[in-house]
């Protein structure tokens, strides 16, 4: 199989990530923060090490403000539902994934908040500022579209939020691991990301970096926290305020190892390789008159047939064992923005582990069928 579905989840994983998971499960996986035997202590220390790695990688200095979640969807839901006060107006982008759009719609339908949508494809700063009202309390925005790879600069979002005393919740799902993200320079009240995409961890862990001045004061889920069991409520401090139940130690260990891999290779080298592969693919595809490129940014190239349909390309690639994702990608707003809401598009999403030979193989197949 040629795997071009890395925006969904990265494959393969670095060997060290696989080894770290195997070692954890074989040798020491216990329930962190519950017991005092060696394995439980080791798990607690490994988890704290992962918090430190994340805080260091994203440059915000407070490992105890890293909260682990199941994935980015949970991270975004938790951040949105614990930080944004009732009767707020919030601003989201026109590229949001359903992991932002659906909780916002639900909260709006419940009368908790109102929202406006800014156009991220033109003048971002101007488009956000013209939506700010007296009751606006937050900007919630993706940093990179999962449909097109289009990047919304965190520097602009952070600046507008600070200038207007707004909370800033960032969805880093498609950018983390592809580019160096500096939360020290670009403060963010909550930065959310999954472990299993660009950070090369296995599925099962995501996280929130509460990297600003505003911290949550209410729990999202209530359950065991491993200490002070007589307390009738969740502990009132991060991270345990928002972490109920058993943490996914193997997934967190893998995330730590994935970050270590990225730092060894460097985000710059990863970006360079992905840029090369993306540019090479676009250069080749531009020769195919029956293929229309919708967008090409970061690690993503999105395309359709010239008729706008995608079903035949999708079937062809599936038959030839080339893994992509077609459709609306859980991002209807983005497809509206790109004019592809009727049929969706075919998304080719690259990783550091793809090769130019794989790009050539894809091109040859499409050339044979779509000249």
């Amino acid at each position, binding site marked *: 199989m040629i795997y071009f579905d890395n925006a969904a989840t990265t494959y393969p994983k670095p060997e060290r990530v696989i080894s770290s998971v195997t070692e954890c499960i074989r040798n020491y996986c216990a329930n*962190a*923060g519950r*017991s*005092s035997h060696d394995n439980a*202590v080791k798990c*607690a*220390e490994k*988890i*704290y090490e992962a*918090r*430190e790695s994340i805080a260091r990688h994203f440059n915000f200095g407070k*490992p*105890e403000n890293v909260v682990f979640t199941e994935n980015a969807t949970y991270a975004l839901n938790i951040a949105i539902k614990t930080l944004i006060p009732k009767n707020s107006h919030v601003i989201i982008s026109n590229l949001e994934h359903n992991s932002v759009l659906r909780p916002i719609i639900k909260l709006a339908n419940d009368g908790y908040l109102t929202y406006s949508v800014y156009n991220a494809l033109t003048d971002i700063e101007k488009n956000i500022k013209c939506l700010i009202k007296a009751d606006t309390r937050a900007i919630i925005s993706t940093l990179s579209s999962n449909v097109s790879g289009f990047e919304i600069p965190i520097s602009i979002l952070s600046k507008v939020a600070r200038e207007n005393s707004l909370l800033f919740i960032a969805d880093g799902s498609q950018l983390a691991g592809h580019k160096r993200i500096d939360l020290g320079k670009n403060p963010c009240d909550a930065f959310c990301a999954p472990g299993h995409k660009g950070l090369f961890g296995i599925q099962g862990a995501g996280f929130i970096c509460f990297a600003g001045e505003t911290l949550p004061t209410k729990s999202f889920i209530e359950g065991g*926290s*491993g*200490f*002070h*069991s*007589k*307390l009738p409520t969740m*502990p009132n*401090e991060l*991270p*345990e305020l928002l972490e109920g139940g058993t943490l996914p130690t193997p997934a967190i260990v893998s995330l730590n190892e994935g970050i270590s891999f990225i730092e060894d290779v460097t985000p710059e080298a990863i970006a360079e390789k992905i840029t090369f592969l993306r540019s090479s693919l676009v250069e080749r595809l531009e020769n195919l008159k029956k293929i229309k490129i919708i967008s090409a940014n970061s690690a993503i190239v999105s395309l359709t047939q010239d008729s706008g349909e995608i079903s035949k390309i999708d079937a062809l690639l599936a038959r030839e064992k080339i893994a992509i994702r077609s459709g609306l990608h859980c991002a209807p707003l983005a497809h509206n923005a790109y004019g592809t809401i009727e049929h969706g598009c075919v998304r080719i999403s690259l990783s550091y582990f793809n090769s130019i030979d794989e790009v050539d193989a894809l091109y040859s197949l499409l050339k044979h069928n779509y000249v």
Partner: protein
Amino acid sequence: MKKIIFMLGSSTYASKAKRALTRNGISAEYIKSTDSRNLGCSHGIEIPYQDFIDAVAILKKENIQYSVKNV
């Protein structure tokens, strides 16, 4: 050897404290006990008694809150 225990509450803060002390050359071992708040079990670290003053300074610098428990 006489020991003293710093009770930190969560395993997160126990790990944070342990790493801060170990980085500064103080031997620290993880321990689970109860603390003065009588809320149930709590996580802490145990250090040699003679390192107490240095440990207090390090934990204060790292903004780590604790209660002290004699062994």
